[in-house]
């Protein structure tokens, strides 16, 4: 076979593979779209039950043979999932490119640390304070910067993430690089034991109570996010994401809604930080590097930005795969990077793309907009060959 023939059959193969994955993903979603109410509720309950029994030993032996499965379920898996849902509101729904999301996670974590160690408040009180403070920090970041166009916002949010980390590192009030230790656990609510676990007793050795707490928080956040998506707010975000100028012309107060997206996303990040800090009991500024922001963003895009099951799956994979393949130690990040490039080349819309967004992407417009210079050329043969008009943001 000539080399042309080989490359043709390779690309045919890839094309068939992609179509097969697409069908595989579509099938359950078709079923879901037409499922009656009671079927959906059954699935929800099954999923929650599944999440609760997930930390079992036998599952752990398969999923995480090198490190403790229940610990890994809390961090990085659970934490990444919750952070991804929060970032999804900012990036996926409102279409704002945030490269500094870790800052809000840090605000939450430090709130728990400061109020826990210096003022002796209890966990539930601090959770509320943490959510409020993070939302405020989201407003502080957003107010001067949300008038900026897409990519400027990216570098500015990146800068903000670094500013938070460096300020924490330089401030004696939070012990600088030494960080804060001795953060209190949530108060143990009862010693009740169910199936051999004490789910409401928060100690150090057993990570499962924290995991259940996180599951509860995730469920609440999903309900909240879904309601937002279907409400007026969510529709405004969709309009802003598609074409901000048109939305403004139609009377949508874009700036206010963008600010709301920022604040809500920040609040979720902060809540996650509070819960995480109460488990790890000691935090340092270097727990919040830029690479964490990039990782959560990758999780959102990889999974399918804009839809919750997608970003949850993306976060799960991004968190779990490096842990699972600890045996490859040295090569973990190398493979992660290569996987990101490969996934984007093969399936840029993510594993579980939002179907609304998929329609947009097919035209190469909307969402985050496409790259310039994408005008099809003689050599190009992309899947999208409709008119490609660049939508400005």
């Amino acid at each position, binding site marked *: 076979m000539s080399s042309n023939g080989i490359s043709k059959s390779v690309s045919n193969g890839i094309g068939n593979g992609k179509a097969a994955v697409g069908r595989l993903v579509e099938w359950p979603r078709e079923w879901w779209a037409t499922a009656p109410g009671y079927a959906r509720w059954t699935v929800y309950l099954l999923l929650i039950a599944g999440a609760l029994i997930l930390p079992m030993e036998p599952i752990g032996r398969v999923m995480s043979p090198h490190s403790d499965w229940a*610990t890994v379920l809390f961090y990085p898996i659970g934490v990444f999932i919750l952070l991804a849902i929060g970032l999804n509101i900012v990036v996926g729904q409102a279409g704002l490119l945030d490269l500094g999301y870790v800052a809000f996670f840090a605000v939450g974590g430090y709130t728990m640390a400061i109020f826990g160690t210096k003022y002796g408040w209890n966990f539930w009180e601090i959770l509320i304070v943490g959510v409020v403070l993070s939302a405020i920090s989201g407003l502080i970041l957003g107010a001067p910067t949300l008038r900026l166009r897409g990519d400027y916002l990216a570098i500015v949010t990146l800068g903000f993430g670094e500013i938070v980390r460096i300020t924490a590192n330089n401030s004696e009030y939070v012990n600088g690089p030494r*960080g804060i230790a001795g953060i209190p656990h949530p108060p143990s609510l009862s010693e009740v034991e169910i199936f051999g676990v004490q789910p409401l007793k928060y100690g150090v050795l057993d990570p499962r109570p924290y995991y259940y707490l996180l599951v509860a928080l995730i469920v609440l956040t999903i309900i909240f996010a879904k309601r937002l998506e279907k409400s007026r707010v969510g529709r405004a975000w969709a309009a802003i994401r598609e074409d901000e100028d048109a939305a403004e012309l139609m009377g949508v107060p874009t700036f206010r809604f963008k600010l709301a997206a920022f604040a809500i996303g920040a609040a979720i990040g902060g809540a996650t930080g509070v819960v995480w800090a109460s488990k790890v009991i000691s935090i*340092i500024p270097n727990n919040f590097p830029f690479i964490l922001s990039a990782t959560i963003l990758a999780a959102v895009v990889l999974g399918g930005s804009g839809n919750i099951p997608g970003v949850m799956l993306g976060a799960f994979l991004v968190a779990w795969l490096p842990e699972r393949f600890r045996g490859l130690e040295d090569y973990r990040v190398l493979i992660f990077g290569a996987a990101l490039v490969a996934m984007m080349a093969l399936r840029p819309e993510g594993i579980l793309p939002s179907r609304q967004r998929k329609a947009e992407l097919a035209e190469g417009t909307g969402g985050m907009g496409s790259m310039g210079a994408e005008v099809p050329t003689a050599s190009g043969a992309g899947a999208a060959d409709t008119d490609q008009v660049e939508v400005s943001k």
Partner: protein
Amino acid sequence: MALSAVLALSAAACGGDDGGSGGDGNSVTIGFLGDLTGENSGIVIPPKQGAQLAIDEYNATNPKVKIVLKTYDSQGQPDQATSLVQSAIKSDNIVGLIGPAFSGESQQAVPVLEEGKIPNISASATNVTLGEKGWKYWHRVVGNDSMQGTGVAEFLVREAKAKKVFVAHDNEDYSKGLADYVTKGLKEKGVTVEQDVVDPRASDYSSTVNKAKAFKPDAIFYGGYYAQGGRLLKQLRENGVDALFASGDGSLDKGLIEGAGEKNAVNTVVSCPCLIDPTGESSPASKKFAEAYKAKYNSEPAIYAAEGYDAATAFIEAIKAGNTTTEAINEFLKTIDVPGVSKQIKFDDKGEPAGGDVYIYRVEGKELPLLGKASEAKLQ
């Protein structure tokens, strides 16, 4: 796709170093936790090798209860350390842990060891606050930063006749901690100190160099690791700052000389609460250890190797005396008092080593040989 390829690759590679589990009749498992593959692994691999040497020597005597050393690579990350400790306790049934190697990971991982009641001895975590937490199962065989800071300050004042010292660090936990204790020690002796910070991710230290130049110090101390220390030293010398350059245990590596350039590194001194003494200047035990180490690993013992050996020795002595449960071993450690390679192996009630000195090493050509104890060493 990419995912399945990754899965296949790893299924093949994931045999790992899973040795036997501990706790059957005639062997117990001791863990070693630290950064074995990251960029600071140069400070963790020697103590691991030291510990392995001690344990292999013990097992070779055909004892009733053998010891298996199982290593855990935390890459210095606290969250990895924590989840590894969890699985070490629950799945591998370790009866003791050598480590965690770094202070940062100790903060998060030791509370788990406390609740799990696992005696742990660190060969290299030097942060002072670790000894102040009232932990009952925690120990270390290395002097802390306060001790190192006092020792360095004493040396600089005595030997360099320093009245003004410029102290720099890279604003990370270990570096800042050590730099602050050096500053404290110097100020107590009436020395004027100015501090500044370098960014470990950057390469251009001009702003710090300029500050040092303007200050005109008698000596400069850098708290931090050799990659940044070497860079700082090079840029200082290139910009005409000739004051004596000193650094702490994080710089005790030939990389300091390579980074700065041999010409620039002349006369530089490095302090360490550790003892690297292949010629046995300090004690014949050091020479014997160095020879055994070289025979097994084909390289000279490096930083904290002797301390790793001593940490393992502490556990070995406990097990030799018939203690094989975590509680019994911890009780034994309270009263242990045997000579080790780096110091007498004895712990105070907080878990700190009962004795120990700070040592000074000085650059000679491409090497960093021992100059002497900080309280005695002479520059001239």
